């Protein structure tokens, strides 16, 4: 658990981060969004003390981050940045091994970990381990960057616009990978982005920042339904609020007993997917199947209509 308390950063008379307080529970993906210059990076970098706060405190599992030397603190926290920041003179394997080497792991353990991570990110070890970063595609470099951040099994991972430089398809894949890895290791993630879509898609909680202030810190559903200020609403855009809301919920949670004809939708898909299918195929009811393809009930357009409306 990370407790950020009245964290503030001043540069001369400019307050870049202004008394930000938030709590990030274990296993959360907290996404910090905001426009350019709103202080997101500064906030993130104060967590691992790459930037020393002017005032306020950060506690990780109840322990003040200032109670250990900064470099030791950072070894316990994964760190991935936009443009990956791989060391150009070191191979993929050496890059990933950076923190384990700093922490003095034994060689066989490091080798095993490097191999495990490469396989996890679908980069076959025998093919990729000895390549230099310049011999990888942008997407592969980004994956190595995340693999490197995860190498020493940190409980907390900080990411600064990790997907910023990727094309939409690779980006979606990288996001899915990240969610998978988060589930698998239970890592707590704090991720910075300026893309609200990405925030809603990835976050279990979203922190909206503007001019150094934390405007709202809430679940994606709350943010969509009840933006705290006009600015948050603006950031969301008014165009597809209903669809965003539906996009946050699983079909499986709103199934009614009964049958319907035509191609089924999966219980794992979102209500937004269901609505799209209903409209596209011109049906008012859709059959729903579970992961194994077994029918579990039906989804009605009326349900979708009710759930997509602004909650009272």
């Amino acid at each position, binding site marked *: 658990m990370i407790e950020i308390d009245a964290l503030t950063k001043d540069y001369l008379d400019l307050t870049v981060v202004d008394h930000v307080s938030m709590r990030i529970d274990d296993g959360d993906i907290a996404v910090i969004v905001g426009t350019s210059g709103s202080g997101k990076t500064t906030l993130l970098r104060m967590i*691992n003390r*790459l930037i020393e706060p002017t005032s306020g405190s950060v506690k990780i599992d109840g322990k003040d981050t200032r109670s250990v030397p900064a*470099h*030791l*603190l*950072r*070894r*316990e926290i994964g*760190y991935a*940045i936009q*443009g*990956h*920041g*791989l*060391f*150009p*003179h*070191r*191979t993929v394997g050496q890059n990933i091994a*950076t*923190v384990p080497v*700093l922490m003095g792991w034994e060689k066989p353990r490091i080798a095993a970990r490097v191999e495990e991570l490469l396989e996890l990110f679908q980069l076959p070890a025998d093919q990729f381990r*000895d*390549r*230099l970063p310049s011999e990888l595609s942008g997407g592969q470099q980004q994956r190595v*960057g995340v693999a*490197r*951040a995860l190498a020493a099994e940190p409980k907390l991972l*900080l990411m600064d616009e990790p997907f910023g430089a990727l094309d939409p398809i690779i980006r979606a894949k990288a996001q899915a990978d990240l969610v998978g890895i988060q589930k698998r290791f239970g890592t707590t993630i704090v991720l910075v982005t300026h893309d609200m879509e990405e925030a809603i898609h990835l976050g279990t909680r979203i922190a909206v920042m503007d001019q150094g202030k934390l405007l709202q810190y809430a679940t994606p559903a709350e943010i969509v339904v009840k933006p705290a200020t006009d600015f948050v609403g603006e950031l969301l855009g008014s165009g597809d609020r209903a669809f965003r809301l539906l996009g946050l919920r699983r079909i499986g949670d709103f199934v009614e007993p009964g049958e319907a004809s035509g191609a089924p939708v999966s219980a794992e898909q979102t209500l937004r997917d269901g609505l799209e299918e209903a409209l596209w195929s011109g049906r008012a009811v859709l059959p729903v199947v579970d992961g194994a393809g077994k029918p579990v009930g039906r989804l009605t357009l009326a349900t979708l209509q009710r759930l997509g409306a602004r909650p009272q």
Partner: protein
Amino acid sequence: MSTVAATGSPRIAVDKLGVLIALIAAVAALMPFAAFRANRIVVGISKGIFEALPLWEAVLVALALVAAILVALLRTPRLWRLFASLAMLAVLFVAIGHSASFLTPEGDRLARVSPGAGFWLAVFAFALLAADSFTRLKLAPWLRIVTLLLVAGAIALLLWSGAWNDLSILREYANRAEAFWREGQTHIALALGSLAAATVVGIPLGVVCHRVDGLRAVVLNVLNALQTIPSIALFGLLIAPLAWVAANVPGASAIGISGIGAAPAMVALFAYSLLPVVANTVVGLEGVPPAATDAARGMGMTNWQRLAKVEFPLAFPVILTGIRIVLVQNIGLATIAALIGGGGFGVFVFQGVGQTAMDLVLLGAVPTVALAFAAAVILDAIVEMVSTGARPA
């Protein structure tokens, strides 16, 4: 290359650099090949190629020259050009030795034969062709070092065989063999010693300049100012303070410090070396991608670890380039050390100038140029090896 079928008649393609080389070589052919002097300081008598060599040898050299000019002029394969230029250089080198034996009257120990302007121009032209075709071959760095060793070996063989013994420069050498090797050692010690000192001081200074913002401008400006002091003036300027140190600091004169001699020479060379080393260290460190240093910090490297594991390795090729500049520069500058009694090949140059004996000047200048050239080739090769060889074998 595109084949233009429509143009019909085949045209002979001409190489641009080849035209220049052919012109220089043609001019060289018309100029004196060697110069004969009854003794080492009288004015020489120029000898054209047909006077300087027995007829059949002169004809052979002339034919070889025509052939080599044709290879240079036309667009020929690179390897041909390289071999033609090296072969032509070999012919010239052997011929000048023969010419010396041919022109020197039997048993005459006073007569001097030295290479004429024509010989030097021809050597220049084909060395240019050799260097150009060699560069365009884009050989691997270690192959370049091997080639350098082969060329050095060939020249050593010529020297050892005695083929050049009648040349004036070797006559001068024969009279001073012992001094030649002694001054050679001093020369290398001056060049390498000042380089080593500049590296030991300059790299840490560069690192500090990189890390401390205010310092960089100050240090680089001071070093820049040092660099602009003419070398002879700098050597002279050091005489007084070092003489004072020798006289007033206990033990200073015991370790060889004095106003004249090797100490001021070493200090001056060191001062000149510092700027390239410091500047290249700073530039190299500044060229390290900011994302890499940020990641290094973010992953928990200490300042030292970041310097040793990330910044220094990435800056190393640039730093090495600075060291290369310094070494080549110092080999040349060390010549001036002789002016203040510091020794080195400059001893022969300045003695020769004093006695108007050009052969003696050459005895100092030729090995200096050869050393500088060899140092440049070797360090270039090393720079390339460390720049591309970042990946482990």
